[in-house]
């Protein structure tokens, strides 16, 4: 069951006595531990100050993180952005988080889901209240068309395959994608992720406006502005993969993914049953750990006792 939480600055929060930055809505029955994690993921660092002209160009952070802090693996999709002045006339932000389990994953992947109209809130003007029902997760897949945003930004739609190819070679590789404010990093990452097979899409964690890594989670695809501090540190690490959309990209090695990005894939019929539209999660293989061979005579060793 998908749970959600909305966090912003309001005159009254959902918890009695809270005001200012606080949770204003969450799904009924959400565990306190989950509340804590979702609130902790609500940080946002403005690129432009509230009084600057370019304030409207502050990037929106769409992210997908995977966390084990609740004792099991869950995915958190988030949208965090600046929002109009709060009730005190000061700066504000709106964070909307959706927590979902593997069985709810749509085939399209996290980026497809994030781009579905109405999935995320982009403003909040209501009173604080509980959300009685779990969030409904749409089903479906991306159309798999040509990577038009990549073509618009870089001149070659095939560049969308850079991220996907790297992920297939090294699934745990962290990538920094340098962008200029105004570029639609959500579309860029969405087109890149659509090149991967459905079973792999939910393994990719990302942030379309990455400034720092929350503890306990990892982030593979990190979109940063050129002057980001995290990028300065990454540039010192020779193993960091950095693709600079504001500069020159590495040459493409021609492969199926590049071709797919340039030409798109033929439209496929959407499976009728809802079960079929969820990503089939392969059963986990149990791992058996071989015990060390105790063929040696351990009797002559000191007895094992706990020491202070």
């Amino acid at each position, binding site marked *: 069951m998908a749970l959600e939480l909305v966090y912003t600055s309001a005159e009254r929060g959902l918890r009695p006595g809270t005001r200012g930055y606080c949770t204003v809505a969450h799904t009924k029955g959400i565990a306190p531990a989950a509340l804590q994690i979702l609130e902790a993921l609500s940080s946002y660092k403005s690129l432009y100050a*509230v009084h600057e002209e370019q304030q409207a160009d502050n990037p929106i952070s769409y992210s997908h993180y995977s966390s084990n802090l609740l004792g099991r693996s869950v995915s958190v999709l988030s949208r965090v952005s600046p929002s109009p002045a709060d009730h005190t006339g000061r700066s504000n932000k709106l964070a909307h988080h959706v927590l979902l389990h593997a069985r709810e994953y749509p085939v399209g992947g996290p980026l497809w889901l994030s781009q579905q109209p109405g999935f995320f809130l982009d403003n909040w003007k209501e009173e604080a209240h509980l959300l009685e029902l779990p969030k409904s997760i749409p089903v479906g897949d991306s159309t798999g068309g040509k990577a038009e945003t990549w073509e618009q930004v870089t001149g070659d739609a095939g560049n969308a395959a850079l991220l996907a190819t790297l992920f297939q070679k090294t699934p745990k590789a962290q990538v920094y994608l340098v962008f200029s404010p105004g570029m639609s990093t959500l579309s860029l990452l969405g087109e890149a992720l659509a090149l991967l097979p459905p079973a792999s899409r939910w393994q990719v964690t990302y942030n379309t406006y990455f400034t720092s890594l929350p503890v306990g989670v990892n982030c593979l695809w990190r979109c940063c502005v050129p002057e980001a501090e995290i990028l300065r540190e990454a540039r010192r690490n020779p193993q960091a993969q950095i693709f600079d959309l504001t500069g020159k990209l590495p040459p493409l090695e021609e492969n199926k993914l590049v071709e797919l990005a340039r030409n798109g894939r033929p439209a496929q019929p959407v499976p009728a049953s809802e079960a079929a539209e969820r990503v089939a999660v392969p059963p986990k293989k149990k791992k058996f750990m071989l015990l060390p061979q105790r063929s040696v005579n351990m009797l002559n060793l000191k007895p094992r006792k706990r020491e202070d």
Partner: protein
Amino acid sequence: MDEFPSCYLRVRCPGLPPVVHQVTQFPCRIGRVDGNEIVIRDSSISSLHAVLILQANNLIQLEDQWSTNGIYLNARRVSQLLVDRTLSLTMGNVKVDLTVTQEEMHQLESKVHNSTTVKITRDRDKTSTVMLERPSLTRAEVLNPDLKANAMKKRFLMGDSPAATISRIAGSGRRGIVCPHCWHRFDIDEFLFIARHQSLIGDPVLGADAQQRFLPSRFTLEGNALDAGGTSCPDMACPRCHLRIPQAASEMPPLFLSIVGATSSGKSYFLTSMSWELRNTLSRNFAISFADTDAVNNQLLNDFEETLFLNSDQEALVALRKTELQGELYNQVLLDNMMINLPKPFMFTVTPAEHHPKYQEVRDKMSRTLVLYDNAGEHFEPGMDLVDNPTTQHLLHSDTIFFLFDPTKDVRFRRLITGVDDPQLAAKARVQRQEIILTEMINRIKKYSGMRTGSRTGKTLIVIVSKCDVWKQLLEFDLPKEPWRWESMYNTCVLDVNLIKNISFQLRHLLEEICPELVSTAESFAGEVLYLPNSALGHSPELNDENGMIGIRPGKVNPFWVTVPMLYFFYQRGFIPPIPVENQTRMQDADFEMKLSGDIYFVSVPGRQKPLQVPLSYTGWQLRCPGTDLWFTIPEPDQNEQ
């Protein structure tokens, strides 16, 4: 190439030269006591700590024998390890390196050290021991410079390196370092260092992106720790939260100061104005240097100062963003499997300037690290004191607390303020009961410090009544621009403490009339409560009709009395002298009847229905009776008895 499976084990104990063992017979027991094949005489090693065993496939495996301090590989505790490559492990305080071949062991040695002298002796049937000479500092030499440190090493320990800092603190007798991030108190020898080698990334407390933290056993001659990759590491960290502690902050004892206030009471503006003004005031007037301890830690505050005081567009409408409950003002750490947000401290180094009249005398006593926090007002709301949100725990460690009271949020004050065009006083502007925040703060301090109900703290509470540009007409007198003056005796300025006390008394009287619950709550908690007016910006903000935000024009910013609370704080600690008694200007004291009851003096003033109530903290100071031109002094207790 070895004929039979073997491995090499190098043991690096603190204070001892490394020892390399060649292990050819299995099982090979490793432990602290005699009887083990490899004896490591360190108290952090269990009597039987680990065993090297040979598996059926001729692979060597290291197994933990339920030791107390475990075996750590890359800061992760492991119970079994296959020895099929070079491994750098930690067992308690001891570093252990395992290699499969002697060549690998020599490579490991040559990475870290410049020259080696190798002696091979056979003292056991099963192992051979290689003794090596090292030109570096051991942990024991750093902690006790007199221990086997030759003149050359001692010279390095007198420098400014981390090892020199640790050495000095260890030798000073000072017990315990308090972490400015998590307030954990630890001994100097528990300091962790931050690895710099690129392969040492991923910390269990700070997350996958952070460099690993480690307990060093060896230091370079320059005084930096050496990490597992052999890289020199100058940065130190707290053993609990793993956050970086600037070297200067560890060397100079911290002075914690808490700023408390409701949401939108102006804490961020006050902190920004205060730090900016202090940089100038302290050095120009009091021969005290006030500088950022660490530019990285204070970056956000510096940005705020630039926005307000160094803005190239003096007419632009600017604003500081609302303080958040997570994000760049906090460090997120994982402790006990919980995400904890710790507030980022702003740290300033306070030292006497060389031209301070008592420089030699006060240099050590006055050299301190001032630690401040900019908490969001929400953190002080009731119910926000959560185990995963210990952001206000600094209250326990602070000697002085600044409580920011915002009169524009108080309905009773607002009724009295007329003729002021300030958006904060608009009819729709929200109001808030602020003594609830004060009560919550008091409850937290009492809860965590074990104070008895009804008892008072030794901390000083300064109630800062902010935004005085809006309400100062409620006072019956004009406030002087600055409560200090030049004193030729000291060749610096001195603080007019009598003036400060007097203004505090007058303001207290005003607050008692308008919001008495605030005064009674404050004085029921702290033995000394001071009430000071100030204005962080000096004039009212404006409403930006386009975006609905409140802003300020940098050209109009003119802080008033923002430094006075801190100057008083420094005066209490002996950093700033008061006006000498013989140079004080005194008025003629009126002859009022005074009666002490508990901790309050009741002063009968002719013409007043009720006597004035004067707390004990005002004894000895000449005060003006509110609403009159009459002055009186409550004598010190011993004078009173006479």
